[in-house]
């Protein structure tokens, strides 16, 4: 559904951020993009809805070159949720904040209020709908920003570092919401440093470094590969460290395990086998 074909981009024409990125994302996929600061992850996201246009190469959505469409047109299809909610909140109530985007994108009055109510309820924000976003906590503001994008009901949802500053419970709630969006058939793309979050919720991972895609595949394969981990400034997941340690003692244990229950059953098997 989304296709990037040899996309190049350099800021001010001088500082290369993407150096030939090609990738394909299918409808309904759930994918994580990882890599160090400055690897080009956010730049890549901005190409999806036309905030940045490739200086070389093409971005296709449903087979059509996105260069024909404006940011506003693409934003109906692709919702971008930013790292810092304060970059977009400016109105004096949560409700107005959600309505604002919908009106800009040209939905009629009835549709706007319908969608607004639906989204508020979905994110558990109904009781805050008349509060000013500025009086809310950081976690709540993040949810309001997310709501303002979800209300547009985009087919593709892309989030930049959604877990920063979130505690374990907030992360769980976010993950549940993303899983739900995914089950509805929406494509979910997340840029994050949070390895455990990726392992638990994203089957496919894209690892970037210095403007190119270094690896693209199954999450456990990507994150258990020491070369990729090193090159993209990631860290080996704790369970993979265990798997690799066990593998040295018992070669039949796969060194690519990432999940707690996999390790658990291996340990039980090994302990019982004595």
């Amino acid at each position, binding site marked *: 559904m989304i296709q990037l074909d040899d996309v190049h981009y350099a800021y001010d024409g001088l500082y290369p951020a993407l150096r030939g990125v090609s990738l394909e994302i299918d409808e309904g996929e759930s994918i994580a993009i990882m890599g160090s600061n400055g690897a080009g992850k956010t730049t890549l996201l901005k190409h999806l809805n036309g905030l940045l246009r490739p200086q070389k190469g093409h971005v296709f959505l449903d087979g059509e070159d996105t260069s024909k469409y404006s940011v*506003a047109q693409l934003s109906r299809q692709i919702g*971008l949720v930013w790292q810092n909610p304060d970059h977009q*909140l400016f109105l004096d109530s949560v409700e107005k904040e959600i309505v604002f985007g919908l009106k*800009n994108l040209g939905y009629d009055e009835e549709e706007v209020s319908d969608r607004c109510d639906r989204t508020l309820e979905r994110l558990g924000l109904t009781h805050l709908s008349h509060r000013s976003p500025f009086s809310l906590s950081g976690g709540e503001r993040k949810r309001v920003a997310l709501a303002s994008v979800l209300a547009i009901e985009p087919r593709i949802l892309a989030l930049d570092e959604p877990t920063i500053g979130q505690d374990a419970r907030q992360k769980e709630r976010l993950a549940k919401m993303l899983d739900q969006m995914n089950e509805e058939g929406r494509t979910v793309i997340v840029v994050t440093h949070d390895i455990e979050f990726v392992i638990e919720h994203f089957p496919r991972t894209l690892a970037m470094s210095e403007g190119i895609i270094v690896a693209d595949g199954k999450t456990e394969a990507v994150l258990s590969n020491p070369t990729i981990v090193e090159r993209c400034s990631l860290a080996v997941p704790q369970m993979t460290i265990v798997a690799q340690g066990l593998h040295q003692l018992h070669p039949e244990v796969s060194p690519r395990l990432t999940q707690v229950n996999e390790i658990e059953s291996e340990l039980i098997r090994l302990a019982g086998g004595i």
Partner: protein
Amino acid sequence: MSFLEVFQYTRQDSVVHRLDPRSKLVMAIVLAMISLLFMNIVPLLILLSVLLPLIGLARSLQRWAKSMSGLSVLIVFIVIFNTLLSTVANPFSYSIALSLRLIALMSSFSLFFLTVHPDELSQALIQMGVKFEFAFAMSMAMRYVPTLGQEAYAIMDAQKARGVELDRGNILKRIRNIVPIIVPLIIVSIRRALSIAESMESRGFGACENRTYLEQLKFTRHDWALVLVSVVSFCFLVYVRFYLALPPWMSWGLPF
């Protein structure tokens, strides 16, 4: 706005860079005043022929040339308008002189700003008796301007993704469209300012009367020499300008 680059510090090592900011300030002011003394093409050209090698010494000729080409539109504008509208005897000649004066003025100050690191500037101000808090506020502005710019871009991106079309519509609509940019920018900046204040406070900002400085600026023999040369040439030129008549070749102008 590329012509403003000529006022931006460039990190380099040169004779000019190593001079004390205070002596460079004297030089820049003297050069600027000289350019205001004369309104004839020849003396201004002579002045430029002094300025250019100085900028060359500061290894910044390329940047200067780039800025000037950025300025060229404005200069053409000045020349055309003055030639058409001015009531002086030789309007074209006058406009050329005017443009030369502008270039000389800009070059004089650029010699200062190109070669003085903002930190040195604030240190110079402190050593000239300005209160530390004020001088520091200035260098902090330099520190956070790029951050603020980046933030403004991030906000624009966020709002564009919500359907705000910044470059569409009539004037009224465009002005209204600034609100979703300005409000978050102000709020983000206030939050940032608070957190910066916390960090500075935690490191003893304003704690004691006798603040020390890692580095003090020192006036060297070169600096004294520069100040001396600047002041003497200024006095001499003032004398020439007001008490002696300019030789005719100096007041030469174009005939129209």
